[in-house]
């Protein structure tokens, strides 16, 4: 085989590989990427039931309850609108999780509108605000909720 032909074959292989990667990425992305919902989105668009999603907002004051088993909690997540989402979570909450501050939860909605979180995302400092929320013009304020 001539060196030139071999180079063309290798080039073609590389392009095929890139194509496969793109296809794989797109199909995996369609099934696995999770969309972000604020409480207002859920109120407007309905409950996304078919897939794992992320929700975020402020933990409403006086909404946090611990269940008798000691490791399950539920709380309300609100935003600047009156809408709220009730979230249940079984696990140890991040160190900085508390009422009146920002939170992001990953998980699924139940048909009754409750959200079962598989993960509560930690925020790393006092001033942290989920970027999904700051970009929507929501600021860290204590009057929310």
């Amino acid at each position: 085989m001539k060196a030139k032909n071999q180079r063309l074959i290798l080039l073609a292989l590389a392009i095929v590989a890139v194509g496969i990667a793109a296809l794989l990425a797109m199909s995996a992305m369609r099934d696995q990427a999770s969309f972000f919902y604020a409480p207002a989105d859920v109120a407007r668009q309905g409950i996304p039931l078919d897939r794992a999603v992320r929700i975020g907002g402020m933990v409403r004051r006086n909404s946090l309850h611990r269940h008798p088993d000691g490791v399950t909690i539920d709380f309300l997540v609100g935003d600047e609108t009156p809408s709220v989402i009730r979230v249940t979570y079984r696990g140890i909450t991040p160190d900085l999780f508390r009422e009146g501050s920002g939170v992001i939860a990953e998980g699924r909605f139940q048909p009754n509108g409750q959200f079962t979180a598989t993960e509560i995302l930690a925020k790393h400092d006092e001033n942290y605000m989920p970027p999904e929320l700051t970009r929507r013009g929501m600021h860290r304020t204590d009057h929310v909720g």
Partner: protein
Amino acid sequence: MIAEAGLALLWLAASLSLLQLVLGAAALRPGNEPLLRIVRPVAVAQGLLVGLSFLTLIWLFLRTDLSVKLVAANSHSLKPWLYKFAGAWGNHEGSMLLWVTVLAVAGAGVALFERRLRQDTLIATLAAQAAIGLGFYLYILIASNPFERLFPVPVEGNGLNPLLQDPGLAFHPPTLYFGYVGISIAFSFAVGALITRDVGPAFARAMRPWVLGAWIFLTLGITAGSYWAYYELGWGGWWFWDPVENASLMPWLAATALLHSVTVLATRAGLRAWTIMLAVVAFSMSMIGTFLVRSGILTSVHAFAVDPLRGAFILGLLAFYIGGALLLFGLRVRYVKEGSTFEIVSREASLVINNLFLSVILGLVFIGTLYPLVTQAMGREISVGPPYFNTAIGPIALALAAIMTIGPMLRWRRDQLRALAGRIAAPALLSAAVLLLVVILAPGTRWLPLLGLAFAPGVALASLAPLWGRNLRRTPLFICGMVVAHLGIAVALAGMAADSAFTQETLIAAHPGQTIEAGPFTIRFVGVEPVPGPNWTAIEAQLEARRGAGEPFLLTPQARLFDSPPTPTSETSIQTLWDGQLYVAIGDGDDQGRWQLRIWWKPFVTLIWAGGALVAIGGFLSLLGRLWRERRFKPEAQALPEPQEALA
């Protein structure tokens, strides 16, 4: 005064990098040969000056000089000295200074030690390295000055993010940076060789040790970072597909591919243009990673508070360097000769497949990491996490592991398929047997961990094959290095698969005195007591664990409250046993006197990091082997044909 001295050193280093670039460019013109001899000393001096500047910053942190804005914002006089020291790079400005320091020191290393590269290519390489440095010096001096003063001087500093107050901070960032930024050498070599049209086996042999060196540090840095996240975050995971982790994984994937393709170029004069391309891509990934991590578009412990202007600045630098290198590549690629040919069943072909798979994985990580940023710009918030990465990458990574073991068994240029079948029979049988065993003993194991468990022993056995029938004392060191590195991959694979298949998790709110069953362990919750630390106070739980009738041992997870800034963190307690780790984190207490405890039994999880360390050790052996061999055959270094099995 010390801060001003540090800044002055930085300005001097920046001017020297400009001088290095200009002199280097001028020296390459015909008639300017005398200039060639000045470039090396300038590069060394530049490395020295920026190194001193960085030491100055460390000194300011050690002394807690609160008149320096950076120290006041990120340090505290009552912090343990190790965190004062490591705190120098636990912030945006300091970490960027470390970045440029590594860049300049790596350039100085090339100027001091590189003797094989053609002189004009070497000068072009140093000029390219200086060009990269110049941009980042500008960035630091204009947008991110670490030596800025603060007036009035505060009485006390703000303290360091408690999550960073861990011995890991002293080790993980510098190691990672040496790899991450050290790979810039490959980029500059590629640019240099394109400029002087010197892409060939001799060039590849000169470049290989530098790539290997950076790759070893990168491997160690990623492994250490993974373990740090594992015990510090207390979530029981060791890899989260966080964009920051991906930012270090992408250059590693590209560097790993480069390491293999450069061998084809050095040994068989093949894959010329591709190797150059990979060298450009590897450091481009480092720069993209720097942008992701340091621009503030991501939220993570790595992204210190930053303003958007800085992000735009780094993005500009990034576009300039990557664009420039690709443009040069496009203009010069037609002068790069085609490589020697090879058959479909050959060592070269297996390395091409290795490169394709690594590139596909790199592409998948790249898309998964950047896609959310793209959709965000279009107004839709999405997040891409482990489900995407595991589904898309898992199968390819397994196939890659298989190819990895077949490659070293093949001869260069041409081999027989039938001979190969004989060589892989034993490992394949072993894998099949393990597969059967796991299916019978642990039904219901998900398919990806199942395949991982089955592949690992076969891959481990096959990775030893290059040593089969050899006199071990006469085996070249770089072959041993390859075997150890490949074995490390198998070991890490076993750890990942075992962790995801067999981890047992217990979540409970327990009273002191209560006994908890967690996996094979019986754990008695003795009680909690307050514990004072140097700059924190903690509530420590004491748990006495034993397996069956074995010796009991004590676990002491803590919930800490740091003084400054006042921040709660949790410290996990981990007991390492020969067959895995028992991992405990403590949560909140409640009004009934119960405490939340989260307990994981993770069989063989330690193999993940042991494998990572083996990979790095393999790289190190290989590097030693190469350097030793070159010393021994120095006079004929250019003429000596590499032996058939040469592969590191």
